[in-house]
């Protein structure tokens, strides 16, 4: 049943013949947790890249640093690698303080955004580089390179020159070059941003499977919230050098901690609250019932929670008190699995726009110009603070 030859070498983490998906292969070494305390980075000239960051990353976790460019996520990653030094604070990996350890003495490896392969070396020598620097014997090195080349399915390219490879292949070589060192932590700096959409989603899946299979701690940096949600166990959203929220993709998307996170996660239905009375809030689209007890200055309604029916139709849940408003369809975007409607709503003098995402169940679609009845469950009206520091 197994295709292994009797002389097969004792297995490293990459040596197993294609294991079934989801099975957790034994990690090469104990995965490591990361702990940052009061990390601050200030550049000469007074530019503050990071403002007192506290962060705990669990062992074996796929952790993502998400934020717009210039938010400090790359600086944070470079500090983990040792390529940047914090101005203040301590950083420990696997319980050991590495704040002052230079990069070549940390068991941390990085997949760079530009891949940063060595163009004058072959694929083989690129992959083997870290092992060579650590002084591993040639024979052992060669064997490991072959194993990992099989693992990333690039065995046939091993003697090519780097400039003969496509972007996706280079990306995989960069991954192999870092993985082969079996680091405590693997850092990935927007590794997929240079690839086209199809290849990108394919490599997202591969990367995720690799991480689950090795059980290694991955710290991933991206500015793409969808990519972050697909890949991560947990996400830290950063802005202006401050962590805005840490949580699972579901938490961050469904319960954004503040207006910035909500906007960054792609939410558009945001309505300022002018007054609150008990569980009702006054907004530009009228008075809304909510079940959110938190104080907030902005109401968030996720587009997929809107219920659309024809004007005369009965309520979607007759026994319950739902928020109801009449809207007109302004635009319709058909996406196959779902349909996005842009709706306009007139409340007295106030004109507002709403976005609804309805999963396509094969029912009749509304047309542009149609009047529709929009119903919103009170539990889907979420209160947000509009200050951007409440983590």
């Amino acid at each position, binding site marked *: 049943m197994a295709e292994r030859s009797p002389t097969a070498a004792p297995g490293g983490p990459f040596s197993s013949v294609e294991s079934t998906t989801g099975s957790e292969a034994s990690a090469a070494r104990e995965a490591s947790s990361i702990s940052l305390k009061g990390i601050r980075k200030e550049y000469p000239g007074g530019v503050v890249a990071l403002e007192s960051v506290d962060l705990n990353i669990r062992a074996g976790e796929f952790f993502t640093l998400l934020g717009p460019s210039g938010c400090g996520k790359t600086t944070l990653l470079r500090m983990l690698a040792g390529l940047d030094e914090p101005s203040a604070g301590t950083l420990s990996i696997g319980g050991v303080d590495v704040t002052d350890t230079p990069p*070549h003495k940390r068991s941390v*490896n990085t997949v760079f955004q530009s891949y*940063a392969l060595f163009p004058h070396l072959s694929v083989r020598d690129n992959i083997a580089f870290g092992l060579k620097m650590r002084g591993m014997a040639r024979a052992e090195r060669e064997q490991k390179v072959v194993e990992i080349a099989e693992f990333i399915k690039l065995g046939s390219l091993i003697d090519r020159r780097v400039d003969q490879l496509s972007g996706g292949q280079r990306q995989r070589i960069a991954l192999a070059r870092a993985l082969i060192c079996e680091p405590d932590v693997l850092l990935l700096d927007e590794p997929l941003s240079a690839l086209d959409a199809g290849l990108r989603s394919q490599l997202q899946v591969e990367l995720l499977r690799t991480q689950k299979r090795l059980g290694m701690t991955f710290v991933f940096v991206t500015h793409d919230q969808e990519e972050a949600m697909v890949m991560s166990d947990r996400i830290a959203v950063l802005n202006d050098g401050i962590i805005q929220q840490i949580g699972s993709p579901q938490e961050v998307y469904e319960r954004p901690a503040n207006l910035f996170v909500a906007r960054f996660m792609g939410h558009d239905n945001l309505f300022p609250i002018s007054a609150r009375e008990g569980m009702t809030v006054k907004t530009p689209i009228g008075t809304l019932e909510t079940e959110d007890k938190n104080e907030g200055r902005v109401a968030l309604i996720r587009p997929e929670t809107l219920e659309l029916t024809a004007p005369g139709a009965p309520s979607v849940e007759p026994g319950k008190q739902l928020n109801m408003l009449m809207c007109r369809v302004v635009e319709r975007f058909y996406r196959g699995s779902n349909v996005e409607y842009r709706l306009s709503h007139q409340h007295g003098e106030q004109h507002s726009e709403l976005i609804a995402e309805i999963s396509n169940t094969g029912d009749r679609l509304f047309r542009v110009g149609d009047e529709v009845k929009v119903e919103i469950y009170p539990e889907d009206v979420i209160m947000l603070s509009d200050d951007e520091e409440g983590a």
Partner: protein
Amino acid sequence: MNQVDVVWRRRRRRETRHLLMSVLPGALWIFIFLVLPSAYLMSVAFMTNGGFGQPQLPLTLDAFRNLAGFGFLGWSPGNLYTLWRSVFQSVISLGLVVLVAYPVAWYISMCRPRLRAIMLLAVVVPSWTNQVIRAFGWMNLLSPGTTLSDLAARLGLIAPNMGLFPSDFAVTLGLVYNFLPFMVLPLYAAFEKLDHAQIEAARDLYASPLRTFFVAVLPQTLPGLLAGSVLVAIPAFGMYVIPELLGGGRSQMLGNLVASQFGDAANWPLGAAGALLMLLATFVGLLVLRRMGRRLGGGSEMVI
């Protein structure tokens, strides 16, 4: 079918003629003013020296034997010393130029953009002055009785009252000073587009600072280094002005030998043989550098 063929042939003939007409003036120019004189010079190298210094038939290898030191007084090593000095001086000064220019170029590339322009200017501007004038400047600094010479004498590097000029040392110094910009500029160009991610990748993959240099910095600057080497070593090999002015009679190089044979010594065949040798040495040098570039993995973007 046949008709199409005829049309094609006519068109091709027209294109050929067009091409010829546009290339011809330049080709003629090069032929008349470069190829013919060079051919004449080469042929002179195989002629015999006449009684009044005019080259004449029959064709012999006398000039080359002369160059190797066989004169009518028997063999003397003077010319071979000159040759050796040319090789030695150009190699030594190339090495020193690299040692000075590499860190300078690296440093400039890391400065703020405005400062970079000023520093590059500081490197280049001296070379706008006439070579002869600069050589005279060095004479003033190095001749006997100057501060530098006294210092060297006190340190026991030279005999008292000898001065640092004229000497082989003065020639080397002059060459290094003269050719420095030709190395700094191509190296700076290479450093300016240095991919720093490669350096970080090497550090990240456990390379010590020294290994990082050899893996991530040197290969990236190799094209600039080789281009600079060509720009320095080849003109240095045939240099005339600097050994003439700073070397005195005992520090002659091949260029001076050739010049004197065409001038005072009036032995054109010997001068032509020296020039031919210079040409050959240049080609060999280029070939070696090219090989080195390939071996060290410069790839297709190599400058030479």
